[in-house]
């Protein structure tokens, strides 16, 4: 059923090229048969795709693609879960850190653990205990350092402060404690055994 809006305006121009004329005639004839009236509007003949079929194909294909993407995300999550069982991170062999005699009480030693790019800090507390933490600040992963004057672990990026006794944050934006490193003393040698990640 057509309305007055569908009837073409007078004075519509036709393409001058002969090939375009032939094609335009064919599409116009198809439009006329489809509309059931004597003359189809020019815009209709220029777009011969039927609206319903175009709409159905587009949305259903997108829904199918969404399901495929969902499957890909599930496969990635399952893959990470499998990796955590097959190749768990954080488990390294015992690594030598320092000699006890080289780190007097109140002193600090920086070392790399568990990997060469992972920075860590060893502290010999005044009460005689040895503690070690990851230098990665729990705020935005800047490298913390031990301030002798304040006897605190300081993050220079945003002035986060950590307690050297426990690694817990005491000031600044960090909310979680530093990852601690389990140490083992064998004679005069100190070894790092494992890194205990901070609780999320």
């Amino acid at each position, binding site marked *: 059923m057509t309305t007055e809006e569908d009837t073409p305006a007078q004075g519509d121009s036709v393409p001058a090229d002969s090939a375009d004329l032939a094609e335009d005639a064919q599409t116009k004839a198809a439009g006329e*048969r*489809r509309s059931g009236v004597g003359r189809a509007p020019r815009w209709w003949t220029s777009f011969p795709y039927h609206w319903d*079929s175009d709409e159905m194909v587009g949305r259903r294909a997108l*829904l199918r693609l*969404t399901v495929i993407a*969902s499957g890909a*995300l599930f496969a990635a999550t399952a893959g990470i879960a499998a990796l*955590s069982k097959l190749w768990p991170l954080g488990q390294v062999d015992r690594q030598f850190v320092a000699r006890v005699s080289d780190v007097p009480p109140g002193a600090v030693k920086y070392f790399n653990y568990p990997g060469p790019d992972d920075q860590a800090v060893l502290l010999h507390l005044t009460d005689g205990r040895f503690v070690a933490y990851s230098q990665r600040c729990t705020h935005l992963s800047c490298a913390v350092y031990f301030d002798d004057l304040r006897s605190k672990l300081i993050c220079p990026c945003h002035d986060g402060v950590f307690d050297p006794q426990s690694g817990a944050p005491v000031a600044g934006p960090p909310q979680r404690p530093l990852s601690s490193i389990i140490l083992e003393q064998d004679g005069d040698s100190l070894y790092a055994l494992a890194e205990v*990640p901070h609780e*999320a």
Partner: protein
Amino acid sequence: MKRDPSHTLDSEIEVQTIRRASAPGQAAVLLAGLAIGALLMSVQLWLLTVALDLYLGGSENGIWPLAVISGLVFLGGILAASLIGRG
């Protein structure tokens, strides 16, 4: 009068189009399905980031439940897509 072969093709296309015409409200159902699917995909993406964060942090616990939840979301998406497709 010579029969135009394109006339037959257009008629067939019209018949097929009429048969595949959408039922009332089908478009709305499809849009709702797409919206819910996008929301669930964002949940799955969040689960993936949490799993990766736990794995890189060295934690072995808590990753498998995330994969199970993501799998349930995926199965739900398949079920919903099949139901919409039948409609």
